[in-house]
């Protein structure tokens, strides 16, 4: 307000006493737009409470606001949460979420950090913010016992996206249990405006039991030291941004992702299946790379990713160290709504079979009779079918449906003890033969995904289904070639 009035005052004076030429040169002298060579010199003029958000959301952009004194209030909570269906974990958190609240600042802001350790907590904690220029990134000043509060202050000088984490001994254990988050320092004038912004952070977890072993799973220090992760997840647990919780965007919107990687051990090969990242602020700093397929995010590092989705549909964010995505949980969804744009993506135009010998792509034969008839008939016993089916399963099915038929919650439906499977054998045959898309309900949970048609013959379908029906407490149906054939001929 003050600068507004002063400039008005000068303006009036100028109009009264000066020539228009002087007006131009001396009167457009707004104090507020002054630039500072050294961020240390940027003055702060007001005190405000920082807006903090839990993932995947981020606070409002700083825009054109001046540097201020920002009060950040955080409570450390040790609390039980869900790692995946049926598996719980004792998380240690900043403000109750993993990752902790997102802090959004601009260069020159002076942060007054209030760190509170809940009285019911068992342990002392502290915080190291990578955005701090000072010993231990604040860790030195912030060790706080249960039931106490510590206050420390720092000025943010370097624009970028930074990780914060607990640095109390043993440091690795505090990070492995979820004590991390991101702090953004925007440049003077703010980042360019975009339509949607999200907060995504990867972390690896080490549990006594293997992936999916039910119950409350304690932290396993030995596995952590050996870097043998059971879970690699985005935003604290498996399926945090999948199904109903998928990130929602519209086709054509500009999207900015603030992506961090807490580790404690693993480096992330961050990739979005089906999209090219238009811009990546490499390692969260100032360097911008363009048209990136996969960007490396170090443990204790971050990246700002900007993109625009051109075609509607589901896009998966994964750690492209790909077993982490499909077997350990490092998978999240972006759901883009909007009009199809065939100039960008046409979808499947035609399906054929490819025969290297023939050199030409041929149409599928209309009748499978010929193909099947050409094979020597052979009666198999149920046991033989199960044995052969198991091989097919491990070659074709298990990447999505998982070794024990457990599926991946929210993404790939389970086959083990699955009501949907046991209810209708012909439907199951049909799905393998012709694929399936759209919403289905399996064991009370909704799945809305796509399974492509599997190009395997009648015998293989019969065998793999017999294996599935005779595993994991399913109903023991034996599927024969005859049954598969009937389904094949129906259409």
């Amino acid at each position: 307000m003050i600068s507004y009035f002063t400039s008005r005052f000068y303006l009036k004076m100028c109009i009264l006493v000066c020539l228009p030429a002087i007006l131009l040169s001396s009167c457009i002298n707004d104090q507020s737009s002054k630039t500072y060579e050294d961020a240390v010199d940027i003055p702060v003029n007001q005190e405000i409470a920082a807006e903090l958000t839990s993932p995947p959301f981020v606070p409002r952009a700083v825009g054109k606001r001046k540097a201020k004194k920002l009060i950040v209030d955080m409570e450390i909570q040790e609390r039980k949460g869900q790692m995946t269906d049926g598996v719980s974990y004792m998380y240690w958190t900043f403000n109750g979420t993993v990752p902790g609240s997102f802090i959004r600042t601009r260069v020159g802001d002076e942060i007054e950090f209030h760190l509170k350790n809940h009285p019911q907590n068992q342990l002392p904690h502290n915080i190291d913010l990578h955005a701090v220029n000072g010993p231990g990134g604040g860790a030195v000043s912030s060790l706080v016992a249960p039931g106490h509060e510590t206050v420390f202050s720092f000025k943010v000088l370097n624009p970028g996206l930074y990780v914060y984490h607990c640095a109390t001994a043993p440091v690795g254990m505090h990070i492995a249990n979820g004590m991390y988050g991101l702090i953004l320092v925007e440049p003077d004038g703010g980042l360019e405006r975009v339509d949607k912004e999200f907060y995504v952070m990867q972390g690896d977890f080490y549990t006594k039991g293997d992936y999916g072993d039910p119950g409350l799973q304690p932290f396993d220090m030995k596995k952590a030291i050996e870097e043998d992760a059971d879970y690699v997840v985005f935003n604290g647990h498996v399926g945090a941004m999948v199904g109903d919780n998928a990130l929602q965007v519209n086709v054509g919107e500009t999207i900015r992702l603030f992506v961090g990687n807490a580790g404690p051990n693993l480096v992330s090969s961050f990739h979005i299946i089906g999209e090219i990242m238009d811009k990546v602020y490499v390692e969260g700093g100032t360097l911008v790379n363009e048209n990136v397929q996969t960007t490396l995010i170090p443990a204790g590092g971050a990246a700002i990713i900007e993109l625009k989705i051109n075609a509607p549909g589901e896009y998966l964010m994964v750690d492209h160290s790909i077993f982490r995505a499909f077997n350990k949980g490092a998978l999240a969804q972006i759901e883009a709504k909007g009009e199809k744009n065939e100039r960008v993506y046409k979808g499947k135009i035609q399906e054929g079979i490819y025969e290297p010998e023939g050199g030409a792509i041929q149409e599928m034969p209309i009748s499978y009779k010929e193909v099947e008839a050409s094979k020597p008939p052979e009666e198999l016993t149920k046991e033989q079918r199960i044995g052969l089916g198991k091989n097919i399963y491990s070659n074709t099915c298990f990447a999505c449906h998982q070794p024990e038929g457990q599926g991946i919650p929210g993404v790939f439906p389970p086959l083990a003890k699955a009501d949907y499977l046991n209810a209708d054998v012909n439907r199951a045959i049909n799905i393998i033969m012709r694929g399936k898309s759209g919403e289905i309900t399996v064991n009370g949970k909704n799945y809305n995904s796509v399974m492509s048609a599997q190009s395997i013959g009648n015998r293989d379908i019969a065998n793999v289904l017999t294996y599935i029906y005779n595993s994991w407490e399913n109903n023991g149906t034996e599927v024969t070639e005859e049954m598969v054939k009937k389904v094949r001929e129906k259409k």
Partner: protein
Amino acid sequence: MVLKQIIFLGSLIITNIAMAQNPEMAFIENGVYTPLYGRDSVQIKVDDFMLDIYPVTNEKYVDFVVKNPKWRKSEVKSIFADNHYLAKWKDDTHLDSEAQKYEPVTNISWFAAKAYCKCQGKRLPTLDEWEYAAMADKTLPDARKKESYNQYILGWYERPKVVHQQVGSTFKNFWGVYDLHGLVWEWTADFNSVMITSESRSGGQNNNLFCSAAAVGATDLMNYAAFMRYAFRSSVKGNYSINNLGFRCAQDIIK
């Protein structure tokens, strides 16, 4: 007045008699141990001493404040105890429930714990004494290399909001002492003599501390458990009164 004198005399007598026979205390035989903060060559000698078998209970602490009004929560000076002092008691001299009687007293400051022990003719154990006695599991005086021992301790450190159990509800160790692990944290006389700076990864004089944690080997888990105790101790001050921090007393053997 008379009562006070009796207590005073009593405590004088107690301090002058070797308490090897005290049924509430266990005898801990002297020995050497390598503390977390030392190099392998640094060995600490711990003399014979007596240690309370159980942490001090709420019931016993009620007796203490009845006799020593200045340690009641309405009377205590804030430099000696912060405002969480005895937070779970109903009032100055009454507990919230009958069950609390046998639970360890917590929300207790270091000054208060020290005064209590002094009044019994005892003292707080030193950090080395406490760590030395706490190396034991059920069968061994030094079980720190056993994985099960360390897992038990780490498991407890990880669990917040533990409902307080009665004293004696964990295991009896080699020396006949209960509850050193798994019940509450405990004050020691010189709790802050080994500071893990709050920046626990720093070099300099804390280099040894950090290096021992960084070493890969059989001792890692043991160090991690000990690290958490040292970190906890470094985070507190003498007047802090914390929900899961209690104490027990020790005593010299007078030859």
